[in-house]
């Protein structure tokens, strides 16, 4: 059974050649600049650069892009609307403020979407544990746990059906619905804990986190390309700020 939640190997795309920790570093740089800037020009320039990377992340068809970004676009629209409708400004100024906020939200989130679209979960865990010394217990434990998510979704459905088979359904009463959901979730939680315990035992049996220094079969290399990627991110940020200052729009949010 294929579930949209299933954790599978990611299809390699050009951007996959960049090490996940280099991508994360670039994300930190972009995020800091976006949080500091308060104008419309800076996020616009950064967003243009991010959009230019979409094809490298394998997101060439508009349908694919929309499928990954619709929650983000929706929240950006929501933020803009709140600003226009309830902000202290009015008229053109309100619209400009709304647009700035929407651009910032999109420009802040898009790098994360690029990372997810281009990065295999195992490579991410490898890179985090090898380069950033993230604990292996956390890195690979999280990976193993994520494998169980689609199983939980299937189990939730089974428990719901099993309850209907016992003559329990909520009908049209919303209170009964909430109570049924609560008791189904509890049954699911009990099952999840049992399965998690079994998984932990199996990982123990395979010597996980036993005190021996762990090796990594796949490795994770940092190459000149990764340095270049981070440098490019810094350059684009500098360019964005420069354009903003030169056009007289620079408006630091802090200070």
């Amino acid at each position, binding site marked *: *059974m*294929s*579930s*949209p939640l*299933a*954790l*599978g*190997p990611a299809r390699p795309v050009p951007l996959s050649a960049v090490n996940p920790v280099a991508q994360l570093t670039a994300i930190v740089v972009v995020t800091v600049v976006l949080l500091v800037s308060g104008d419309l020009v800076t996020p616009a320039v950064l967003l243009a650069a991010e959009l230019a990377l979409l094809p490298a992340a394998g997101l060439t068809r508009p349908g694919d892009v929309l499928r990954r970004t619709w929650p983000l676009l929706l929240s950006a629209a929501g933020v803009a609307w709140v600003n226009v409708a309830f902000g202290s400004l009015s008229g053109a100024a309100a619209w400009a403020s709304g647009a700035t906020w929407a651009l910032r939200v999109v420009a802040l989130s898009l790098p994360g979407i690029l990372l997810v679209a281009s990065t295999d*979960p*195992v490579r991410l865990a490898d890179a985090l544990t090898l380069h950033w010394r993230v604990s292996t217990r956390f890195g*690979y434990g999280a*990976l*193993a746990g994520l*494998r*169980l998510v*689609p*199983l939980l979704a299937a189990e939730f459905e*089974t*428990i719901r*059906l*099993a*309850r*209907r*088979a*016992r*003559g*329990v*359904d909520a*009908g049209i009463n919303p209170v009964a619905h909430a109570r049924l959901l609560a*008791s189904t979730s509890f*049954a699911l939680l*009990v*099952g999840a804990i049992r*399965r*998690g315990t*079994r*998984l932990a*035992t*199996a*990982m*123990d*049996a*395979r*010597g*996980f*986190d*036993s005190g*021996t*220094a*762990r*090796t*990594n*079969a*796949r*490795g994770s290399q940092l190459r000149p390309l990764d340095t270049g990627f981070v440098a490019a991110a810094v350059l684009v940020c500098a360019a964005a700020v420069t354009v903003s200052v030169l056009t007289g729009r620079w408006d630091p949010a802090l200070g």
Partner: protein
Amino acid sequence: MTPAAVRLTGWGFRHATRRAWAVRDVDLAVAPGERVLLTGASGSGKSTLLRALAGLLDPEAGDPAGKLTVDGAVPDRRRQRVGVVFQDPDSQLVMIRAGDDVAFGLENTGTPPALIWPAVDAALDAVGFDLGRDRATAALSGGQKQRLVLAGALAARPGLLLLDEPTAQLDPGGAAQVRTAVLRAVDARDATLVVVDHDVESWLPLVDRVVELLPGGGTVEHGPGWRPAPPRLPVRQQHSPGEQLLAAEAAGYTHRGSGSAGLRPTDVVLRAGRTLAVTGPNGTGKSTLALLLAGLRAPTTGRVTAGPALTAGLRRPERPPHRWRAADLVQRIGTVFQQPEHQFLTGRVRDELALGAGSTRRAEELMERLGLAALAEANPFTLSGGQQRRLSVATALATAPRVLVLDEPTFGQDRETWAELVALLAEQQDGDRALCLVTHDAGVVTALADDVLALGVA
């Protein structure tokens, strides 16, 4: 790697929360390279013993007695010499690619990366896994997953291989694949093998001897040529086919977002007085068919219709079963799921039955008849596997439905509880009722079925 020696003298273990010993007075010596099947009824402590051998019993979880050694040392100090395979493949796989998962154990023991991939390939080859290192683990069948788990255990070349009911969750084809892989892996006798299972017949050709743990403590050794006694089969009455209660007409099911059908269009008729067994390998949609017939899911093609005998008393008898109210459904079609605990709703066996039966008198009667009276006050979740199964059948019977749908009713049962359950189901076969059994278990089909529907792979 050289095979390991195992020795137990007067060994026992008592869980911290229990008064009774889980297992006690076990004397056992397994020579290097030997293959031993450890069997015994549910609750005889087989799995506890296996965990102790693997060094996985937390000393704070209870009190041990006697002595247990692997290669002359306590198992804690021999963890790297031991490979273990448990029952459920999904809670043993860690990584998302087959090769990475086999490599996982080697990485944990600090194997230099250059040596890992040759060892991974050798282990995959040893279990006959030929789908490649990059295959997604989520896309594998149960038998393939379990062979991969076995490869992961073998990759570090253990001196002792421990298997805890490794085929219990697989269909017969997958189980046979796993046993073949085990045989291949230990053929050179460079690892000692201890298998825990209550399915004795399947392992007999692979093992040198059988040791049975007795429920009260101690063991019995069975010599070569020993066969377990055949199960007691119930005497049952044949009924002529009565009125049609439920029918599936070209009913099929496709999971949302999936390209291929989970169940191809299928015709089924359930008649009063008859028992239909639905068989076939995993992935053919047997359990899905059970859900359609049970009125729990709507078919995505075709339809499921109930006969007049079943719809009598319904306000809208023209509606298909999946649109009935749950309260109406449970009076007419009883369903028993593969995992009994999914169906339990209360904290006491007595309440569980009273919920369906409506009257306490009928609940008492059911408990008496199904041998649950002594457990009336117990929490359903604390019962043994066999007791839980009896209770789940009892809850389905409590409303006296005319159709009973059971998904893998004998799953996880030992010989004793299997025979009890089959006898119980035989008692439910009367002239008014139709049974539908979805099962891998050929023994159940022989014992109970009037008709057999074998689903095939698409």
